């Protein structure tokens, strides 16, 4: 079992589920009451056992398992969460400069009765959609659209929610031509001073600068099985060990899980997912996410714009670990390390 990754594990669970549902049908049919008197008990036993196996597995995931879960193709995407959590979504398109990027969606909607500006990366589910969404690799016009909508929200005091789910920003020649680096940098620069509450949640892949370009927020949260990383594990392995297949080692070394991100002070909270991952129960996952958004927005609503901006600055200002060694003084006494 230890040699399986979580996707392979899911396959064996799916096989078990198939057998269990066959068994369930037999129990319901009750065609052989003599031979199968103890079947309902056995079934209940097996179902309990199944839950225990999943729980055990999910309490012991490797970093690479977390990467696979974060990329799971059945995982809810931004528009799925918007559909489950918000009402009256009005999508707004285009950056007014070049085009409209399908890899980032933006607009306004209501969270219960509260108007919210929403910005999120969007992946596709079939080939056509995936191409339209550029596999979630957001382009310069996506970041500029996001920036435009966030500034609009700030102008009218509307809180902002951003949902992060990208393998990284677009890295092709055309992205460079249109200033992908500037587009990401400018969003971080602008988000740092928007006088309205911002909550960002990593819902799937938090792929380096492409993620951070819409994630400079008052509260940064992660779903339990999302990942947030400075570089994709494959890329890290290729650079460090010239071997992309060492991706699992790289995933471990990069400390990209929600738990570690919280311990490092990079994120403020981790939102629990349904047992077995958000993809097993979209409704429940969206419910937990919505609850977290409401809670965090409530904590921010009484702060003034200036207070928000100052606290947001100090929040990011404090991230980093280093020592500061005092210079050797002329009297010959050197002072020690001060963290």
């Amino acid at each position, binding site marked *: 079992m230890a040699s399986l990754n979580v996707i392979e594990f899911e396959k064996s669970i799916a096989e078990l589920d198939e057998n269990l549902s066959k068994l369930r049908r037999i129990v319901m049919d009750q065609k052989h009451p003599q031979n199968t008197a103890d079947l309902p008990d056995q079934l209940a036993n097996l179902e309990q056992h199944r839950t225990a196996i999943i729980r055990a597995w999910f309490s012991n995931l490797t970093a690479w398992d977390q990467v696979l879960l974060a990329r799971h193709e059945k995982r809810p995407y931004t528009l799925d969460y918007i559909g489950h959590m918000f009402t009256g979504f009005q999508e707004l398109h285009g950056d007014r400069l070049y085009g409209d990027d399908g890899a980032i969606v933006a607009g306004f909607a209501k969270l219960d009765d509260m108007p919210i500006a929403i910005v999120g990366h969007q992946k596709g589910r079939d080939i056509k959609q995936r191409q339209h969404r550029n596999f979630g690799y957001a382009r310069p016009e996506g970041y500029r659209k996001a920036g435009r909508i966030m500034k609009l929200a700030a102008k009218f005091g509307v809180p902002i929610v951003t949902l992060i789910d990208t393998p990284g920003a677009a890295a092709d*020649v055309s992205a*460079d031509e249109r200033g992908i*680096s500037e587009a990401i940098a400018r969003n971080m*620069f602008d988000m740092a001073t928007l006088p309205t509450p911002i909550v960002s949640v990593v819902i799937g892949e938090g792929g380096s600068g492409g993620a951070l370009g819409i994630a*400079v927020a008052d509260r940064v949260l992660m779903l339990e099985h999302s990942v947030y990383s*400075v570089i994709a594990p494959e890329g890290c392995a290729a650079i460090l060990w010239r071997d992309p297949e060492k991706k699992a080692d790289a995933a471990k070394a990069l400390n990209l899980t929600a738990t570690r991100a919280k311990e490092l002070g990079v994120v403020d909270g981790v939102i629990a997912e349904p047992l077995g991952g958000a993809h097993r129960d979209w409704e429940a996952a969206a419910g937990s996410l919505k609850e977290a958004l409401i809670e965090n927005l409530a904590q921010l609503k009484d702060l003034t714009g200036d207070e928000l901006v100052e606290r947001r600055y100090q929040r*990011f200002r404090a991230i980093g670990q*280093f020592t500061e060694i005092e210079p050797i003084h002329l009297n010959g006494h050197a002072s020690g390390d001060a963290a």
Partner: protein
Amino acid sequence: MASNGWFGRRSQFTQARASHGAAAIPDGVATKCVKCGEIIFTSDFEKNLKVCTHCGFHHKLSADERIRYTVDEDSFAPLHENLRSVDPLRFPDYQSKLDKGIAATGMHDGIRVGVASVHGVSVVLAVADFSFMAASMGSVAGEKIVRALEEGAARRAPVVIFTASGGARMQEGLLSLMQMAKTSAAAARLAAANIPYVVVMTDATMAGVLASYASLGDITLAEPGALIGFAGARVSAQASTQKAPEGYQTAEWQLLHGQIDQIVARKDLPDTLGSLLQMLGFSPEPTLDDLASEALTEADEEIAAIG
């Protein structure tokens, strides 16, 4: 302190550490250009500010060389020299890479920060040294850039940053990534204080550094031929359907695509920086000579008035 100009400083060159860019031929008499392969006398190469006398390629500089080639003589005073990287993730081989970087540069990390004057204009300066782990941005580099930007706001002095970096430092994981947000936020604060921020992109300015503080200058200059791009060649080629165009990710290509204000030859940088800062309203500090001659003039006038 007023500059006595570029030619005045030229005599100040000492034998620089030959650890940068061009490979030194063993006896140090000749140097091979990393771009065109031409063998150049090291003395000519250094007199030419490590710009190839044959093809004009601007080789990478150490932080000290950069400072010496740029600011008014003896005007640089370092700040925050004591910041040192730790190994927060216990990342494989990180400590040995840090040790190598320290040995190669004599610096604790890849950024040197300080105050200086350029053509007499007081500035806060930050300079990257690519030979320290490709000047990648971890906690220390991010913190030093932020302190430089904050120092500029506090002193009301323009901030000039010479960028070079392979990007965010993988070995500090998310802590490195967050330096992108931290430095960008500090640049926003400097902008809100109406203090100029000038970026000079040097070879190579890439990835997480290009996608944060390097792209946020009020004015963006670049050295000729500098490699400037979001993704490395391998990643970009994988992501692209088109072939990389001629000169892709060079300073000249970025100029063509609107990302850079001006490409400036190394020898012209002090003049260009001084001129731009003065046009933004930052005048040279008066020198002792200036103050003395001003006092003399006033005394003369008073004597004339009495007389």
